[in-house]
């Protein structure tokens, strides 16, 4: 298999071409309407890079991630991962959700083991691996606790450990730190970079926080407000490893201004401060009944 390369000569992990995603929603008169959440969506994500999708809420960035994860089916276009057309669930992926999505009846260790259990790894081996990843995320000693006994930050550490434990080559993160307080958030951002620098999996990260995007990423794609497409891609040429203090460095501040210039209009549209024809509000969590096929939950 020949690996596709982009203009800069890097290997391409994910290639999205003309991806389209429509939702049918009912308007106030109860008539069905087609809303385009994604339209002419084109994107190349490189092997091993930390890539962030940045955009105002409701712009369709989570929709793209769900399509990428195989949890929702796109209406049109093509996505390929490692040169193979993506269809359904990619077993080489880990997904971290904003709402942690830990299984409350499983202890922390049992939660981290889930992916390994699904892959039918023998019990002893998966316990060892889980312990290892428990250490990696700094929760040694909390293995026998239940998720509800942990703070939000700790739960998200467990979720990260769980999605890394089966060694996926692609990590998808859907606003993983959005529900955390500012301090915990910064700590987890640094932790994530530390872990990523050890594992170098490709990460597709979703956020609406500019600072978070710049601090973490190699590249940032800014999305337009609905229908979502890529407005521009910024290179974040800050050196690594990045200390927490880099947020105050002139280069960081300059990048933030640059990115804000791109983002500003979209945020204004999204929050309704510009009188532009706005598309009707989308349900923010689309129904993934397609992905569930038959499971009527």
């Amino acid at each position, binding site marked *: 298999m020949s690996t596709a390369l982009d203009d800069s000569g890097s290997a391409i992990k994910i290639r999205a071409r003309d991806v389209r995603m429509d939702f049918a929603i009912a308007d106030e008169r109860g008539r069905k309407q087609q809303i385009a959440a994604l339209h002419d969506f084109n994107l190349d994500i490189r092997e091993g890079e930390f890539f962030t999708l940045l955009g105002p809420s409701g712009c369709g960035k989570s929709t793209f991630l769900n399509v990428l*994860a*195989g*949890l929702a089916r796109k209406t049109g276009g093509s996505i390929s991962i490692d040169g193979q057309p993506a269809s359904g*669930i990619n*077993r080489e*992926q*880990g*997904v971290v*959700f904003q*709402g942690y*999505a830990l*299984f*409350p*009846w*499983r*202890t922390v260790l049992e939660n981290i083991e*889930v*992916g390994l*259990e*699904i*892959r039918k790894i023998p019990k002893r081996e998966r316990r060892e691996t889980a312990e290892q990843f428990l250490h990696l995320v700094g929760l*040694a*000693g*909390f*293995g*026998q*606790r*239940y998720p*509800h*006994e942990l703070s939000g930050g700790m739960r998200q550490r467990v979720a990260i450990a769980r*999605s890394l434990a*089966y060694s996926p080559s692609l990590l*998808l993160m859907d606003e993983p730190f959005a529900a955390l307080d500012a301090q915990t958030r910064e700590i987890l951002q640094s932790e994530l970079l530390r872990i990523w620098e050890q594992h170098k999996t490709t990460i597709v990260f979703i956020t609406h926080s500019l600072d978070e995007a710049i601090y973490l990423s190699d590249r940032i794609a800014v999305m337009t407000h609905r229908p979502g497409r890529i407005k521009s891609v910024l290179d974040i040429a800050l050196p690594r490893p990045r200390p927490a203090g880099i947020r105050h460095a002139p280069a960081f501040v300059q990048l933030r201004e640059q990115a804000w210039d791109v983002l500003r209009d979209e945020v204004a549209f999204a929050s309704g401060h510009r009188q532009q024809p706005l598309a009707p509000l989308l349900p923010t969590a689309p129904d*993934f009944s397609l*992905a*569930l096929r*038959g*499971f*009527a*939950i």
Partner: protein
Amino acid sequence: MSQLAASPSRRPAKPVSLLSSRQLGLQWLERSACVLLFFAIWELLPRAGLVNSAFLSPPSAVLAAIVQLAQTGQLGKHMAASLQRSLAGLILAVVAGVALGLLMGVVRRFEAFVDPLLQLFRQVSALALFPVFLLFFGIGEASKIAIIFWAAFWPVLLNTISGVKQVEKLLIHSALSMGASRGFIFFKVILPAAAPSIFTGIRLAGAYSITALVAAEMIGSHAGLGFLTLNSQEIFQIPSMYAGIVLLAVLGLALNYGLALLEKRLTRWRSGLEFHE
């Protein structure tokens, strides 16, 4: 290091009671005051002649009747018969209710198809169906177990369906995203997530099964607490009639306690959840 690691992994300690034994005693008294008052009034009414003691036996006489029943071996016989019937009906109802409930919760088409009929059936009182069960199953044990089954089946079924439907989608998405099979999602996500709701149904079913038991035992039986109650009334053994009623309540309480214990054991992860959420 081992000490450091050990400290956070210990199980959460039970909340230490700050009350002294005297305060605890007072608290107990406060909680049981109403019940004690009830027994006092019950004792007093027939003794003071306010109610005819031929109709209302005082608790002391009821207790004496229970002791006497125990001594003659009658108590064991009636208890065993009742327990056997209610447990048989209850267990059948739990097995059938959970199985059908899971199927209906997961396969939406099947639920849509069956639901109207079930809505109709659940309105049919178990007692109204008793003559039908008698026709089909005869006057023996089968018809009695059938009526208990009918009463206990519905709460299990309905709570299982609603438990399955209320499973957080995010949990299913998360399992799906890791490549989980349908079997894994069903047995390792949906079933444990629905377990608390299923148990609510089972405990309700326990209460209903006792209610139905009484009715079942009042027709064509020779043993059981319901039979004891009705039969004592017919032969005018009023204290032992009240003994039967009291023992039925005790049986119901014991069943509920046992089911609560089982629930606590099987959904142990929930302990302390109320304090954290």
